[in-house]
């Protein structure tokens, strides 16, 4: 059974919600979790909720990386943080993968120090899953977007590797034999986007191992043209936050409208199930987390605001990825590219 190291102190609601999420997993699955963080605080939360102690180990770490701390500063001063101790547990073989809802910058930087980049990979990519329209029954309603913040700007070579890694991940996790890969750009024409994106387009088009569907635009993100969408971290992060923001605003606007007029309230009441479905579709807690790709070990990064349900789902995603040998699949794909 896989062992998943969980950074108990990372996240806006740590350690309470993180520990609760792990407790849920311990009762529902056969996944073993290694909770890393302040032992006393972890135990205090555990004792208040139902859990299965046979599935949970605790590894003490006396420090934690605050959510708003500079990543380099955190690496310099917090060597005994829960994040670093958890990463070392994975690197040393005590656990098979790590899940963290903590400081994203610190997570990427710490992973680059504790894990090894796959041969040929120069930069790791932070992925996220986002909801999209489906075209046929049984199609995965989620697409993979990467990079969403591990890098700011990328070279063509790096984006090509992102595409290969994303495709390999989706092949295993979404069970799509040939995931369609798109390049996020200003337009669908292959000459759009400047020299870097044109070069990436040319090279992906020439890759036999990738089902490249060409450039995709922002509105294609939710249309489902591609299973994997590749972009620079700067662009990806903006796109991700925009998707989340629209979903939240939709609910807020509906609530505000309902308070103003009776007719609107009645109308929204009639639409409530639809609004709930849209809200559920964009609810990140359902999807748990997404991987940081490019390392020899698996890192599932959760949203900073993750609550127990999201953490539990992230742990399940990590365990599934370990069982499906995702890191090996990605390494093979990257090896084939070279």
């Amino acid at each position, binding site marked *: 059974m896989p062992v998943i190291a969980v950074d108990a102190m990372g996240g806006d609601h740590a350690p309470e919600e993180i520990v609760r999420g792990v407790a849920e997993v311990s*009762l529902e699955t056969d996944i*073993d979790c290694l909770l890393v963080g302040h*032992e*006393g605080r972890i*135990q205090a939360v555990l*004792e*208040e*909720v*139902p*859990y*299965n*102690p*046979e*599935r*949970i*180990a*605790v590894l*003490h770490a*006396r420090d934690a990386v605050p959510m708003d701390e500079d990543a380099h500063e955190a690496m310099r001063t917090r060597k005994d943080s829960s994040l670093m101790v958890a990463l070392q547990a994975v690197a040393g073989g005590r656990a098979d993968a790590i899940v963290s809802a903590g400081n994203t910058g610190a997570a990427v930087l710490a992973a680059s120090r504790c894990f090894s980049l796959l041969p040929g990979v120069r930069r790791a990519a932070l992925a996220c899953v986002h909801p999209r329209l489906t075209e046929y029954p049984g199609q995965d309603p989620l697409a993979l977007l990467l990079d969403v913040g591990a890098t700011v700007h990328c070279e063509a070579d790096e984006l090509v590797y992102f595409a290969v890694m994303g495709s390999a991940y989706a092949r295993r996790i979404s069970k799509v034999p040939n995931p369609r890969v798109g390049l996020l750009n200003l337009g669908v024409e292959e000459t759009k986007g400047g020299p870097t994106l044109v070069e990436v387009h040319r090279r992906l088009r020439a890759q036999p191992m990738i089902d490249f569907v060409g450039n995709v635009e922002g509105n294609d993100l939710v249309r489902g043209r591609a299973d994997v969408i590749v972009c620079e971290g700067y662009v990806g992060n903006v796109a991700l936050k925009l998707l989340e923001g629209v979903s939240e605003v939709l609910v807020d606007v509906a609530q505000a409208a309902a308070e103003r007029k009776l007719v609107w309230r009645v109308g929204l009441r009639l639409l409530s199930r639809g609004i709930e479905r849209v809200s559920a579709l964009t609810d990140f807690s359902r999807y748990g987390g997404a991987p940081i790709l490019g390392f020899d070990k698996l890192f599932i990064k959760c949203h900073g605001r993750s609550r127990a349900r999201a953490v539990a789902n992230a742990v399940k995603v990590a365990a599934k990825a370990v069982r499906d040998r995702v890191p090996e699949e990605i390494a093979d794909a990257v090896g084939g590219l070279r």
Partner: protein
Amino acid sequence: MTLRPRRGTTPVPPLLCRWDLDKTYLRSEFDTLRQLWRAARERGADKVEVPGVIEVLKGLRAAADRHGRPITMLFVSASPPQIGEAIRDKLRLDGVPYDGIVFKDQLQLLRRGKFANLREHAGFKLGELFRGRAASGVATREVLFGDDWEADPVTYSVYADVVAGALSVDALEPLLLRIGVDREVVPELCALAAQVAGWGGVDRICINLERRTPPAAFALFGPRLAPSFNYFQTALVLAADGWLDPDDVVAVAAGLVERAGYTPRRLENSLADLVRRRFLSISLAHRLSQPARRAGLLPALPRQAWLARLRAMLARRGAGAPRAPLPGPLDYDAILARHRSPARGGDQEAGAR
């Protein structure tokens, strides 16, 4: 390997172990009427025990024999005597060394029209506990075994406090009424309690967390009550108390591995959980687990384990002190407020079911 006997050498005080049956020894399922009906019709061979319990029962007897300690093991069950034959068959098949079994005569209650008492077990159990102790003698030490489905934590704690002299017989009467015990049997219970009040000797109450009730729900019961998630944890607590030897703990671990699919990692996590809940000190956990590690039932410790242990001990300074006994009787107002009486029905927390 044996631990030094905890108490003096001569005379060795006798040990009295009282066990609940359903959810403590047997993995009984009777959440629905259909399950209840099926449980009533089961033969001994059909009944399934909680993993590890047989080895604990056998270990208690073996350790007592090893140390020349007289031991009596009794089952006190609120199930009707009509299932007695199947239960005895099961105990015989499992080779469990027990000395007696008491059932609640539900049929008599039905005949007397005492329908409300069919589900009220605290009065019945307290009566049997007081009677059993009176027959056993002043010097007896006791360990009680129950689960988090019924009223075992409350019933056993009330009994232990009366026997310890922490709860007076005068205070017992209103408490029994609050718990929901039939008003008619309260005087008899108080008379029985008076016979054994102040005798002392209830050393441990072991509660099997069959429902996975959060351990914090039992904080009000004090450190005498040890909630355990499996019988490996129970065995470790009993070994720490001196009622089992480390080799008996090995037998329990082996039983869990061989017959219940436990892995060394699951057992190790259970051990660590008990240490974090402060029922075992790190050094005692280390000592008790050594034979199991040698037998390959627990993972071997890494070469620098002593360093990790030292670090863990330092990290736990202050917070890691053993749980201190609560002075005087337990705060039954708080317990009953949190764990509502079974007689009042409703959604109850563990301990008063």
